[in-house]
């Protein structure tokens, strides 16, 4: 709402009455109109006839000015030549409400493609899939940055422009507002009748008394009020403007906090088997990503051990197998040698250490196996984490014995096992997939190989996959690949006296994601401020009240009150009525029954206007 609107509102030509007394009678507007006629033509008998000057819009302009700090709307006239002229013009445009509106639109439109096209930041495999399927479209999308919309040049350009506009808008508005707080509300306009809410009566109290009463009543209602000339001027609701400025400032704080967080962010994953631990250093992560300005020294020092993982699942009904509880019990310590504390990490309840958060993000099983060579020496013993393939945690992975093993002939060799694990095996004759995610009937299926695992070739390989190129499968008597289902406690024997594999038991593992994102506190503070400021700016009405008390020509005091809000609202007249009531109680109407100027004059007008 700009100044000009306030003016227009104030000089509007529509009227109706808010009948506060509830007499239920026809409104006295007819009388009012008639009386006003008299006033405009300068006839006597109307209140305050000395004020019946020609309409003076400038006067009203001052009364309605600075009711807000919104920038003035200027038509986008091109400036006359000159670099400074152009720069100033450009700046004005950028910080105008019209351009702010346009940029808001652009921003929301620009955000749309990112929600419909797969984004690298969210799902790389979907992006790869999309690129594979769309030969012509994909390169175009790639050029336009459509696979990473929210970090693309054009998206950044829009929001940076918006925030420059915001800053350019907010700074002058703040100064203006400070000025308004220091200054005083403008004095009463000459013609209070032109304001959106108006009341008047004649009283025996002196003008000074009325003003004093008015001043007191207004101050009691926490208006800023003072006497200027024959009138009291008052204003209230500055909190609206303050809230609005706070809201826009909070947006800036949020944006900066968000950008800061992105630049210094780090995120890594770590899989931990029950009983094992983790210390927060770069080398310990299974994988790690970070923002552009992050450095390894920024990692918060802490460590933790996974004591126990608990998962429970729906056992009946159509959602059988749906996870109900995931819960990891950990002992953690902050700093190099901090005190050990125990806590639980759940899916929605990360462990927070400084600005790092440790999330529980996945879980699975790690069968514990013991592998012995032909002489009965243990060459491998421990849990082997396997990756879940489906909702019932059918898992797969590999067991690799890299060194220490000698075969029946005493030669050095490496062993490899392709492993399948079913926490709940359906029994013979059922498909080789798990029937339920919990450990009801665990079965470990192993396929045995020997030879060279290929781990020394320098090519990185997944711990979950067996590189079989240089491996030979163990064959049974019929020449079939050796493959066996083991229950807990069972042992499988490798043919030719090459050793044994025992399935000792199952441990659970949990996958943790450790994220560190500075600035979240600022973002949250900004968000809370934004909501508070927004509520203030939308629910508080800034408004002005003037009370004029002056002697009429007959010596009787005429009280006139008027109210002006920033926008049209029923609250302004309501409040004016309440105030009028308070003041009227102290300065009651003169009892002069028949002196009703409105009804005694201009009876034709009155007749003509009756509906």
């Amino acid at each position, binding site marked *: *709402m*700009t100044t000009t609107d306030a003016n*227009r*509102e104030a000089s*509007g*030509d*529509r009227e*109706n*009455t808010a009948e506060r007394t509830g007499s239920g009678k026809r409104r*006295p507007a007819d*009388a*009012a109109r008639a009386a*006003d*006629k008299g006033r*405009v033509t300068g006839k006597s008998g109307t*209140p305050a006839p000395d004020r019946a000057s020609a309409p003076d819009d400038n006067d009203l302009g001052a009364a309605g000015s600075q009711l807000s700090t919104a920038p003035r*709307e200027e038509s986008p006239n091109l400036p006359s030549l000159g670099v400074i002229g152009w720069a100033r013009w450009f700046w004005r445009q950028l910080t105008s*409400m019209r351009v702010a*509106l346009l940029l808001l639109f652009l921003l929301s439109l620009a*955000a*749309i493609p*990112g*929600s419909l096209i797969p*984004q690298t*930041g*969210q799902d790389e495999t979907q992006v790869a899939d999309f690129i594979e399927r769309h030969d012509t479209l994909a390169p175009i999308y790639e050029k336009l940055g459509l696979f990473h*919309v929210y970090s693309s040049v054009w998206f950044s350009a829009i929001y940076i422009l918006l925030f420059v506009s915001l800053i350019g808008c907010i700074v002058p508005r703040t100064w203006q507002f400070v000025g308004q707080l220091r200054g005083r509300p403008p004095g009463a306009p000459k013609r209070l*009748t*032109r304001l959106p809410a*108006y*009341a008047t*009566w004649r009283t025996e109290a002196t003008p000074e008394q009325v003003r004093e009463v008015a001043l007191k009543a207004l101050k009691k209602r926490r208006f800023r009020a003072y006497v200027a000339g024959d009138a009291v001027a008052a204003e209230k609701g500055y909190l609206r403007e303050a809230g609005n400025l706070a809201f826009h400032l909070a947006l800036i704080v949020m944006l900066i906090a*968000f950008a800061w967080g992105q630049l210094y962010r780090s*995120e890594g994953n770590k899989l931990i088997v029950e009983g094992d631990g983790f210390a927060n250093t770069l080398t310990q992560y299974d994988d790690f990503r970070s923002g552009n300005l992050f450095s390894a020294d920024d990692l918060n020092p802490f460590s933790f051990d996974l004591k126990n993982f608990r998962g429970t699942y*729906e056992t*009946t*009904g159509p959602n059988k197998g*749906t*996870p*109900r*509880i995931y819960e990891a019990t950990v002992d953690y310590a902050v700093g190099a040698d901090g005190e050990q504390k125990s806590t639980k990490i*759940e*899916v*929605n309840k990360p462990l927070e250490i400084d600005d790092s*958060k440790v999330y529980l993000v*996945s879980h699975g099983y790690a069968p514990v196996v013991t592998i012995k060579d032909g002489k009965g020496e243990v060459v491998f013993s421990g849990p082997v984490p396997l990756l879940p393939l489906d*909702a019932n945690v059918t898992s797969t992975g590999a067991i690799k014995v890299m060194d220490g093993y000698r075969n029946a002939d005493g030669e050095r060799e490496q062993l490899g096992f392709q492993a399948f694990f079913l926490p709940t095996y359906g029994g013979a004759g059922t498909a080789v997939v798990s029937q339920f995610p919990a450990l009801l009937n665990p079965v470990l299926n192993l396929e045995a190989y020997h030879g060279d695992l290929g781990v020394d070739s320098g090519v990185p390989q997944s711990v979950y996959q067996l590189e079989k190129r240089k491996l030979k499968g163990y064959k049974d008597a019929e020449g079939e690949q050796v493959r066996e289902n083991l229950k807990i406690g069972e042992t499988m024997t490798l043919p030719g006296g090459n050793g044994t594999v025992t399935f000792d038991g199952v441990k659970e593992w949990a*996958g943790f994601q450790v994220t560190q994102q500075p600035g979240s506190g600022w973002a949250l503070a900004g*968000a809370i401020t*934004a*909501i508070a400021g*927004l*509520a203030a700016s939308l629910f508080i009405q800034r408004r002005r009240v003037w009370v004029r008390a002056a002697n009429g020509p007959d010596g009787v005091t005429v009280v006139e009150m008027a109210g002006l809000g920033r926008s*049209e609202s029923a609250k302004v007249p*309501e409040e004016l*009525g309440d105030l*009028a009531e308070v003041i009227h109680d102290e300065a009651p109407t003169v*009892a002069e*029954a028949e002196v*009703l100027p409105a009804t005694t004059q201009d009876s034709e007008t009155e007749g003509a206007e009756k509906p």
Partner: protein
Amino acid sequence: MTLAAATNENLASISNTLIYSAMAVYTLAFFAYITEWLFGSRSKVGRTAAALTADAKGGKKADAPAVTVRSAGGTSVLERPKVVVRAAAGARDVPDGPGAHGGDEQGDLYGRIAVSLTVLAFAIEFGGVLTRALSVQRAPWGNMYEFNITFSTVAVGVYLSLLALKKNVRWLGLPLITTVLLDLGLAVTVLYTASDQLVPALHSYWLYIHVSTAIFCGAVFYVGAVGTILYLFKDSYESKLASGGRPGHFATSVMERLPSSASLDKFSYRVNAAVFPLWTFTIIAGAIWAGDAWGRYWGWDPKETWSFITWVFYAAYLHARATAGWKGRKAAYIAIAAFVCWLWNYYGVNILVSGKHSYADVSLAVLQSVGV
């Protein structure tokens, strides 16, 4: 099966019965509203035209009020000063219509019946939502079926609250109940999900905060959108009259009974502005939840993105109302676009776009997102 599970299934089927009963009563209310409109069409209102043509003829109005106090009956009993109100210039001086019944007594009777039926249906539907919640022993906001039944309950609740506050909103009745029936129809057919508990990723008190405010905001935005659409119709009707056009008989009959375009515009502005801070809060609560559940508070997931777009559209709407040249119809179009974004975010993104918010298999998504 345990005893508790049996009770829960019992409650769930009671809930279903209640929802179907509520639909039946809403249908009755729907017919009662229709009847109100039908009876109302007998009345000839013509206030808008009268007001506008009076203006057009240049019937000069006195431009300011003056005397507002008189002494009743010439005695010393004094009345309090009256406040005279003037409206903005440029606004058409059109009085509000009398409502669907058009002043017709029988119409009014049916209108009251319709409201009573709506109250009854609301109570039943509320019971349905409540028993659903009891049957799953959590807040009833775990899937789209539950969202839909809660959503329509809240929308009707908002409407009835406004009525209870003596606001002039009975004109909302017919459009609202029509869409409530659509919403429930979708819920019990396409979206129905047997009652069930939540996967761990949805377990958080932020769920209750975020989802309940989201549903509430949606319902209020919806009420605002109905106001905006009617505003657009009424505004073009008034423009047509003002420029000397003669709208059709049906349009006249319906439009005359609605509040003036200025009132409708103000109504939808108030409604939208009132929930906008809550919508802001909803998004922030969602970000906090995402921070706890997914390790980042904002990640441009489709759901997050569309909430943001909706938010920016509503912000644009509020700005437009403060920008010269954008008030009125243009601002109204933005408000409608904003609500369409909200709807799309609910139906479109939930069903058509894959993201972390696909409620059916959140636990799997969580597992996959790590890609260990």
